């Protein structure tokens, strides 16, 4: 799937480390089973050569790590950014969350990452090896013969509806830059909008009632960078660790989505990490779709320093009552 090879990245990382441009590298470290790649900080060429990996499971968005990383020292850190990661990168810059001077950003092209759940569904349990061969992944399992699965069939949802292959921020680009894509990422949202209120309620009740409040969606989110989240702050009046299928999860997810509205770049990390497979991106995407339709196209992170729609206005903005009607087709 990937156009850049792991070797290219390793060579680039070693080069920048050796020539002193950076003194550490944020990259992916190989795991036990090919697909369990861990974000890691490399400081030596030896470590990079032996443990750095870049494969179809390197979905993690590193931009959020830069907040902590740039606070550590005065020297630069190398970060590899896929096109979607660069939007988060810019958004964090817009919000003054890290010092741009302390980062050396290398843009890497991306043809989409694989979703291990889809791979397992296609190839069966007990995966022992996954190899990329052309447009396919060849999967070995404990119970079946090797199986070739087309990369396109196991793409993560967020990659299927990829919004941009263009890097909006980098110091250096490996390979060629792509374009912003006219994706159909709002289709799923539209499907929900076309439902009746009752159906939508049933849908979300089913989804959100599975929430275990592990906070993974929030903790991975590059827009959720508060020093202390209101839901962790006993002084905030909304702190609550309990789950109660009648209210708390809805409160958490609505407020979280609202807090990142206009700032969410739709990187899709929230849904990727949800252990309960709740399609959380459908909340954020609803806000993005509404913002586009109410206030004109706006892509958070496309431009560092841009003014988010919720801290802006025009005198002719849509009225809330009309907005609700516009926001769901069954209301018309």
């Amino acid at each position: 799937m990937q156009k850049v090879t792991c070797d290219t990245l390793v060579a680039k990382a070693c080069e920048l480390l050796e020539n002193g441009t950076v003194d550490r590298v944020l990259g992916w470290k190989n795991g036990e089973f090919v697909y369990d790649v861990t974000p890691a900080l490399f400081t030596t060429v030896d470590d990079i050569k032996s443990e750095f990996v870049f494969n179809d499971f390197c979905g993690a968005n590193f931009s959020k790590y830069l907040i902590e990383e740039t606070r550590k020292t005065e020297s630069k850190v190398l970060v590899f950014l896929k096109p979607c990661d660069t939007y988060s990168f810019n958004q964090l810059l817009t919000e003054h969350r890290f010092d741009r001077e302390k980062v050396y950003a290398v843009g890497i092209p991306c043809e989409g990452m694989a979703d291990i759940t889809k791979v397992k569904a296609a190839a069966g349990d007990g995966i022992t090896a996954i190899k990329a061969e052309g447009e396919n992944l060849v999967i070995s399992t404990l119970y079946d013969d090797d199986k070739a699965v087309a990369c396109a069939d196991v793409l993560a949802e967020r990659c299927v509806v990829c919004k941009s292959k263009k890097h909006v921020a980098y110091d250096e680009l490996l390979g060629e830059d792509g374009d912003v894509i006219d994706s159909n990422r709002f289709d799923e949202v539209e499907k929900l909008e076309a439902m009746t209120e009752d159906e939508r309620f049933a849908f979300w009740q089913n989804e959100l009632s599975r929430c275990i409040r592990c906070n993974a969606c929030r903790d991975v989110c590059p827009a959720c960078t508060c020093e202390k989240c209101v839901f962790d702050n006993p002084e905030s009046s909304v702190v609550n660790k309990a789950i109660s299928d009648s209210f708390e999860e809805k409160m958490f997810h609505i407020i979280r989505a609202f807090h990142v509205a206009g700032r969410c770049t739709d990187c899709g990390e929230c849904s990727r990490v949800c252990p309960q497979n709740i399609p959380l991106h459908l909340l954020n995407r609803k806000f993005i779709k509404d913002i586009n339709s109410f206030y004109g196209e706006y892509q958070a992170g496309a431009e560092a320093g841009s003014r988010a729609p919720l801290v802006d206005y025009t005198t002719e903005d849509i009225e809330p009552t009309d907005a609700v009607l516009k926001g769901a087709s069954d209301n018309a």
Partner: protein
Amino acid sequence: MQINGEFQPKIVAFCCNWCSYAGADLAGNNRLAYPENVKIIKVPCSCRVNPMFILRAFQRGADGVILCGCHPGDCHYTSGNYYTRRRMALLFSMLNYLGIEKERTRVEWVSAAEGAKFAQTMNEFTEAVAALGENKRLEDLRCKK
């Protein structure tokens, strides 16, 4: 809440200090009746109303929440209600997306001179919420009696 077998919705109305709260006072001065289900909370500007307050009201048993502010362009703080308008447009659209009945939330611009509009708005809103019945979709069972 049921009173004498009839459903009585709980309505929370956030009113900005400069226009809508004064509009509500004017409704009082002119003895324009509206349902007692409506309880007003005064805020300096409609832009002080955090979505969390609205969800909190539903959690605690409100059946409808209405926000009143100065007419766009007339905000005492010049731009507060413009932010309110965007925030609530997005929030209400999101609540409806989650299946919360759209009639339960509303924003209305009421000036200090519009006592009659205030009363009429509250009459209509209360009636609409009463027609929906109890808020079951954003309730917190722990808070029910």
